[in-house]
């Protein structure tokens, strides 16, 4: 073997090793998802045989239909669809409002700096890292005083409050790299405070909007603690309903229905990642490399 051939074969060896490792790990992480998916398409009879990893012999979507429309959660047996819409009604306004407020905060903190602005930003960052559990009691008191206890509106308020910190962080860092001369030019051109924001900054904020929306959507959709604490019963979000569904079954444990419900609960966040995932990475990298 010549020197070059030795080199080529050794690099080939490493490549095979790397890819094998990657595939093994990917399979390891995908295994639970795989089990969930195939379980949700089996019937109860087949589940009882206990072959967890085998593909369904009779593919059926009965479990999905039942999870959506007629599974029992607590005492009502109407499936999880109502709670799914609860979650949507909670997530969409929370994400939109917190993203918008974060953008305005980022704009003010970078382009309309005032005395003590660093402190304001530092406190907002601090807000990002306050553990949820600490605020449960004061928050419920405030919601009670506002008359929003146990409502979706109340949950939206909680999530917006918590979301502002991260949204501000994202937008502030993005706008810090945004040329201030553009803002000055717009000022001379006669654009107002909000005019500059709407016409100049926001249209150039695509990547960071995507990042913030994905981040907020995933966090708020997956939240369990606030949902369980502040929105009981009819207005509970999907995550709480899923928990109740799984824990409140009487008699036979319907794993296929549980898995189908869990898949439904996870689908929106998956969808958001698939649609906007590449912008997510692009947004995170924005500013790090000169474009």
């Amino acid at each position: 073997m010549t020197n070059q051939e030795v080199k080529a074969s050794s690099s080939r060896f490493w490549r095979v090793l790397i890819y094998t490792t990657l595939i093994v790990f990917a399979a390891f992480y995908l295994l639970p998802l795989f089990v969930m998916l195939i379980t949700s398409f089996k019937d109860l009879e087949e589940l009882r045989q206990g072959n967890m990893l085998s593909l369904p012999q009779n593919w059926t979507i009965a479990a999905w239909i039942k999870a959506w429309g007629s599974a029992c959660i607590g005492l009502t047996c109407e499936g999880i669809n109502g709670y799914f819409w609860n979650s949507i009604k909670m997530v969409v306004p929370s994400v939109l409002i917190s993203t918008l407020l974060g953008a305005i905060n980022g704009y003010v903190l970078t382009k309309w700096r005032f005395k003590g602005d660093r402190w304001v930003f530092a406190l907002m960052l601090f807000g990002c890292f306050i553990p949820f559990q600490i605020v449960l009691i004061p928050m419920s008191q405030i919601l009670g005083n506002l008359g929003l206890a146990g409502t979706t509106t109340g949950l939206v308020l909680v999530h917006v409050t918590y979301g502002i910190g991260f949204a501000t962080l994202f937008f502030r860092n993005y706008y810090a790299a945004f040329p201030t001369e553009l803002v000055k030019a717009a000022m001379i051109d006669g654009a107002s405070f909000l005019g500059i924001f709407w016409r100049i900054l926001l249209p150039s904020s695509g990547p960071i909007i995507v990042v913030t929306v994905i981040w907020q959507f995933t966090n708020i959709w997956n939240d369990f603690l606030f949902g369980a604490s502040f929105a009981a019963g009819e207005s509970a979000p999907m995550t709480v309903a899923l928990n109740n569904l799984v824990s409140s079954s009487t008699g036979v444990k319907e794993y296929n229905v549980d898995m189908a419900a869990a898949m439904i609960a996870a689908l929106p966040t998956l969808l958001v990642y698939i649609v906007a995932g590449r912008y997510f990475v692009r947004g995170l990298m924005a500013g790090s490399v000169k474009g």
Partner: protein
Amino acid sequence: MASLEIRNVCKSYGSVDVLKSINIAINHGDFLVLVGPSGCGKSTLLSMIAGLDEITSGELVIDGEVVNDKHPSQRDIAMVFQSYALYPNMSVEKNIAFGLEMRGVPKAERDKKVESVSQMLQIGPLLKRKPAQLSGGQRQRVAMGRALVREPKIFLFDEPLSNLDAKLRVDMRTEIKKLHQRLGATIVYVTHDQIEAMTLATRIAIMKAGILQQLGTPQEVYDTPNNVFVASFMGSPSMNLIPATVVAHQNSVAARLTSPQGNELILPLPQPERYQTWIDKPVILGIRPEAITDMSSAEPNNPWVFPADCQVDVTEPTGADVYVLTTLGGKEIVARMRSNCGAVVGQKTPFAFNMAKAVLFDPQTENRI
């Protein structure tokens, strides 16, 4: 009538004084260039005229009206930024029309103005493009278009040419000058390039460390600099500054210089009454390279041209001329001679000093005497 007046304007950040009592007044149609080295406060002054920086004390007057507390958009000014500051999300057309739109000019009128400006700047074919799709020179034109379309009282330019390559810079310089002549607009222009300042300005303000050193026409600033800084900053190669002594000479006054060989060189000075009190005192003699020539290119009828033999140290041919370096008063000095003047390194050659163009500086204060 004064178009722009800057009265005792100061600027300080905390305890740091960035601008110290600046006084400048220019008329309608003047092209004022603020020039100086980095950190001299020229850009800060421009920002203050634009209203983007607050004025610590003093008054800023535009067309007879104090505008200190007016918002940038209400000062009737337009600015061209160094980075061009084109809105990246808008087409060229929208960029140019944005200022008009914000001022509530109807769409039809906007279109008409954009059309005429784009014709003037020859950017018609670019109107639908985004700034990212333009070259540096094209962006520059669009930035100027955005200012022109508003027809403001004063145009402000913040080092607009510094991001262009050398060739384009010269072209755009000529174009800005043409534009100024055609529109008769009042312009305030910041640059650190003294050639840009000389070629464009009707008035030059030279600044250093927050202090206005001199305000005058390009010729005034060039011929009679207020101090050593202005003398050496304006002109390339810069003015020769030679240590000398004022002496009485033949009922008049002259400057005495010493060559490295110990020879004395006596050069009579015009306006002797001006230097009477300086006899036997050290001074700095300032004389531009083009005022020291070979004998044949000296003005034959000028009584203030004096020849002197000096040793040639170095010759630097530029094609049209040759810069001949010699040493006088312990300083290297540059003379500008014809390329075929025959100066040979290491040999003596006659230098013709045009003393009518000479100026003297006080070596202590560095101010002109």
